């Protein structure tokens, strides 16, 4: 296991040379590594995603109607996400913003973009290199939960932190 961690660290430092954003990393020491989990020696991107979700609590944050304001629970989730992402500067991340289906087509696109941008800005504030992050809005084109109930609508107003590679 020690060898695997060393390998990951090497990959990380090799990749960091490609990301000028890393130089703006705050000088806070990285959080202590959690106790070694029973993970496979070599994590594919699927394994990385599973680990990211497990350690961040969620890859999603939710918003109020028509709002892109980050709630306290959303900020807590993003803080955990940022902690993981800072340890994995080699991972390319896409933040996908979504609106609920009760929104109109074009406003939904703009609101989804706004949500993704707010999440990206907050992650950068928490020390994740900007170069690691991109954003996209899916408007109301990727409905997560069908239905017109308030609960269903709320579950669609989201931004998802997607590990690309």
């Amino acid at each position: 296991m020690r060898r695997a961690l060393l390998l990951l660290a090497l990959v990380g430092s090799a990749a960091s040379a490609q990301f000028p954003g890393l130089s703006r990393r705050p000088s806070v020491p990285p959080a202590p590594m959690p106790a070694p989990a029973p993970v496979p020696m070599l994590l594919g991107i699927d394994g990385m995603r599973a680990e990211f979700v497990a350690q961040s609590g969620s890859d999603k944050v939710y918003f109020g109607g028509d709002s892109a304001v980050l709630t306290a629970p959303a900020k807590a989730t993003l803080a955990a996400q940022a902690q993981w992402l800072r340890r994995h500067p080699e991972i390319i991340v896409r933040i996908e913003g979504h609106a609920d289906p009760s929104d109109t087509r074009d406003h939904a696109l703009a609101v989804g973009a706004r949500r993704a941008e707010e999440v990206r800005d907050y992650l950068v504030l928490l020390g994740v290199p900007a170069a690691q992050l991109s954003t996209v809005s899916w408007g109301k084109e990727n409905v997560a939960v069908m239905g017109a109930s308030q609960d269903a609508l709320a579950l669609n107003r989201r931004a998802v932190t997607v590990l690309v590679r």
Partner: protein
Amino acid sequence: MIARSASLLMMGLAMAAAPAAAQDVAAVIAIPPLTTPDDKATGTDSPAAVAWQASQLIASDLRTTAELVPVGPDQKDYYSYPEVTAPTFSRWRAKGAKFVLTGFVRSRPDGRLTVGCYVYDAVKGREVGRTGFVVAPEDWRRAAHKCSGIAYTAATGAPGIFDTRIAYVAESGPPSARVKRIAVMDGDGNNQSFLTPGDTIVLTPRLSPKAENLAYVSYLGGHANVRIINLASNEQRPLVPDSAMSFAPRFAPDGRRIVFSMQAGTNTDIYVADSSGGQAQRLTVAPGIDTDPSFAPDGTQIAFESDRSGTQQIYSMAADGTAQRRISFGGGWYAAPVWSPDGEWIAFARRVPGAGSRIGVMKPDGSGEKLLTDGALDEGPSWAASGHELIFQRSGADGRPALYRVTLAGGDARKVVTPQDASDPDWSGALD
């Protein structure tokens, strides 16, 4: 790629009766069958066969309007070729008709057909409109739509809506993996064709006024971007470089410029660009989401939607971006303004947060607001060329969208039949 489907599937507009509210003022128009001097030829492309089919199509076109009630065609009402320009007015008056439409189909030596139509005021006994075309036999439908158009114009003073095209997004597949394709059909639902293969999400097709070009939004480059298709050549390209998210395109009345939205950070603003390329000019700078721009028919003003006040509201501005002012003050949220072709109205989707949205209209100064639909989730209004009617998208409880038409006069919305689920309709102006 744009191969017009030759099969005449029955995809016409649903032929519901005209709204009861409007029927009180609707005028009866007699449609005796078009005649032909070439009654010896037979076969499906013969003048006699085309004349009968065209007569039926004209009647079915006019039956979709709120202003006219067609009577006929009836085989008993055949008349001779010379009577085309000398109808027996008393006979039609006796049947309660205010108007009568006559016409002929004649073969030409080059194999094409001449189609002529005449519209008369049966009460006053005088001609009020005429039109004539030379068409290939397989293009008889367009000639018939032109005949319907002059009858509609003679009766209402407004452009006909029959020789038009409707663009929309055809949807299929499960909710979690919708396949979306840009589709175009004739105004009566015929000639369906699909312009994109369905391998990426596409949105909001918008036809140029004469349906020569189509602007739409594609995720081909990984995010929303406006693209332009030339409908004759099927060539397409991005409107602006693929770097920023661009969306909500709409052609100016001149068919050359396009207004659209572009996003930068948390801000979305309105831009205008020449559809053939060139630098985009920024028209709004206010923080917030400015989108869904729509030109007035004279090109001097643009209506748009902005949440700069905190909620979505409708604004107007001069075409150069000056003199921006809010015009919607009815409470609630207003989205997707579209200026009517006669300049009289701005259509919109009015959102009630948590309770869906409805289609309505208001005067360009914000007065005279009225809601026209009562669906749970109605959006995306687009005007008919007449300015008397709108097409829009209605989503059902299962989230599946369909197209509907509703008249300014009121009455129930009528479903437009499409081969698949359909969203984001856009209705062209009358073609040349």
